[in-house]
């Protein structure tokens, strides 16, 4: 495993692999989101209770999943960075913070808009919603650290450790609907006893989740590429100065 990491810790070698993946995932993201939206907005049936408002689910649920996945990714990258000290993991973690902010924000906003017709209120202070809002603020804190410390080695460790400390929130978000009686409904896809959503709704949901996943990879690789090239440019300029 470590050998494998070593092979791709070299930024140039990583970019060689990353650029084709970036292109493929960009195209894949476009098509899966496009087809997913057609299924979600036109072909899937309206819910017998919630009528047409159920279509907000196809944005809300995938972006909530993706924001959790983004934080998990940042957490794991930070752990790998702290253990093996490969700067590439740190770049990956840092560049996924703005994407995480966008996903979290869209999940919060779409959730609020969905809450009004179904619960009768935009916002309640229940466990799931509050812990998700805390996740949003932790993301903002990571962004603050990333911007204020810029690229000093001190800032790198600060970032990695903060994302480590913030990881406590993930299990709380996941299990908040089981531990407390919340207004937010419990998990209906990943749960013991099988899926409780009909196949016609499940297909667009998974398509949208897959699309957002590809989108995440695409945006992440684009910003990582920019970051690496910027760094090599700075190194090049410094080497010119020294000569």
């Amino acid at each position, binding site marked *: 495993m470590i050998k494998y990491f070593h092979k791709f810790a070299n930024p140039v070698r990583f970019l060689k692999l990353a650029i084709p993946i970036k292109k493929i995932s960009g195209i894949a993201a476009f098509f899966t989101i496009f087809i997913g939206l057609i299924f979600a907005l036109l072909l899937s049936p309206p819910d017998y209770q919630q009528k047409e408002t159920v279509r907000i689910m196809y944005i809300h649920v995938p972006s909530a999943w993706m924001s959790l996945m983004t934080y998990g990714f940042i957490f794991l990258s930070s752990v790998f960075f702290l253990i093996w000290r490969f700067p590439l993991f740190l770049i990956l973690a840092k560049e996924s913070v703005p994407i995480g902010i966008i996903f979290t924000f869209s999940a919060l906003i779409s959730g609020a808009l969905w809450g009004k017709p179904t619960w009768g209120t935009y916002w309640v202070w229940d466990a799931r919603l509050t812990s998700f809002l*805390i996740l949003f603020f932790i993301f*903002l*804190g990571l962004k603050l650290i990333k911007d*204020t410390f810029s690229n000093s080695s*001190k800032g790198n*460790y*600060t970032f990695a*450790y903060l994302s480590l400390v*913030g990881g406590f929130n993930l299990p709380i978000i996941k299990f908040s609907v089981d531990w407390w009686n919340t207004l937010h409904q419990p998990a209906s896809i990943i749960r013991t006893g099988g899926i409780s959503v009909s196949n016609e709704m499940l297909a667009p949901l998974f398509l949208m989740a897959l699309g957002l996943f590809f989108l995440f990879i695409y945006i992440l690789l684009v910003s990582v590429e920019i970051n690496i090239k910027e760094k090599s440019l700075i190194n090049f300029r410094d080497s010119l100065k020294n000569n």
Partner: protein
Amino acid sequence: MTRLFILLLSREVKGYLFNTNKSWFALGFFLLCILIFPLSLGGSEDLLKKISISSIWICALFANLISLESLFKEDYKNGTLLQYHINRIPFFIIVFTKFICHWLFTGFPIIILSPLFLIFLSGSYENILGLFYSLLIGTPLFSLIGMPISALTLGSAARGPILVFLTIPFFLPIIIFGVLSVNSFSSGSFSEYYLLCAILSIGIIFLPYITIKILKESLE
């Protein structure tokens, strides 16, 4: 080892006692904060009675937050931490003495004074014991959670704002369960106390460990 611990602890306590700014700052801030609540409610005693517990918790949070800034700052600036590191003094002793002193001078006075302020704010005696227990578990947690973040922001130019911004999200779960525990104490339910105790027992192991890692990183 025990001698070293006692030596460092007495040094920390002396540091707090002789530097009156440091020791009275948190408590003074707490008193001022408490003063705001009755004044800002416009003399509505009914409302004040309802929010008395929450206001004491909020003031405890802010007093803790405001004193986090000076937790490692002085020792980091004048090189004491580096001297400790060079002389191979185990970091867990340093971190635990810092934690104990920080709690002793910010959390402990608030716990002792909280029943007094509950009577002063709400005019009743009913929730005194519940508030006392919840603060007893909650304030060490505040100090513990604040420690790694205070260590993280060492050496940053805009330390104060960053510290406040980063720390409050991590304090939120504690204040949620703290206030809930006092409310359910009167009905004989202790589930939130058990949860806070669980968080404390996990935190007292892992958070000093993370702090040690961060401090070593910042000294190298």
